[in-house]
């Protein structure tokens, strides 16, 4: 590889590692924030995409490590704001342990496909935190 291309790749890798280190460090209070703000759920049948979003309006950027889970964080604080699972069936094939939680959340989201609906946070805290925690770890 050309030295200039290698330098670009090194820079990209450093940025990637630093971003995920900041996300992990910034979200140790995730459980408290989920319980405090509550979460909204949306399932887009056409795109097979399940979205979880904290019920607060803040600027966001989206990051991924596997092209399956997209982690939405504040661009300055790196606090988690939401999770988007693009290709739910692909995700469940890769993470079958997540199926029971995903199906419970999907049942809530399917009350209004394509729209964000509130998830009863206390009853669903474990399911919500499973995905939010995975997205921020």
């Amino acid at each position, binding site marked *: 590889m050309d030295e200039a*291309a290698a330098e670009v790749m090194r820079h990209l890798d450093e940025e990637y590692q630093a971003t995920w280190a900041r996300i992990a460090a910034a979200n140790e209070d995730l459980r408290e924030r989920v319980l405090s703000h509550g979460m909204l759920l949306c399932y887009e049948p056409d795109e097979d995409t399940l979205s979880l979003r904290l019920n607060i309006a803040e600027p966001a950027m989206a990051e991924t490590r*596997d*092209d399956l889970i997209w982690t939405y964080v504040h661009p*300055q604080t790196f606090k988690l704001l939401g999770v988007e699972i693009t*290709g739910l069936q692909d995700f469940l094939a890769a993470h079958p342990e997540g199926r029971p939680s995903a199906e419970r959340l999907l049942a809530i989201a399917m009350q209004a496909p394509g729209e964000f609906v509130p998830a009863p946070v206390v009853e669903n805290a474990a399911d919500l935190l499973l995905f939010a925690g995975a997205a921020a770890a």
Partner: protein
Amino acid sequence: MGTLPELREETTRRAMNYGFTVVDKFGRPVTLDHSNRERHLLKRPDLAPYHHLVPIVLRDPDLVNESARDGHYHFFRWRLTAPPHEHCAIRVVVQYFDQGTRGKVMTAWLSSSVAPLGIIRWMRLPPRS
């Protein structure tokens, strides 16, 4: 092709009203239709101030990465965003059809990092000193 400010003005006018078709970095026509644009902005309001720049990202990206998962092309362009997103790239995802001869914008958003996945199809190298 006009200057960057001219190109921005032209693409703003078109994208705000009708969606667009633009020839991408690889010479392939890529389309964003109006209904898709509305859906993008509802889901990703942070992109709204930059949505008119999507054609520039497709024509003149800093990096293009082909996803290993689904073969979609991710176009990245940095240094077009303002605080609090100043360190973010505009990231535009394109799916190609008809043996790769034409594409459609699937989604777009703001992102600060690039996962080491897939195949890099193009990158802008820093100028040699």
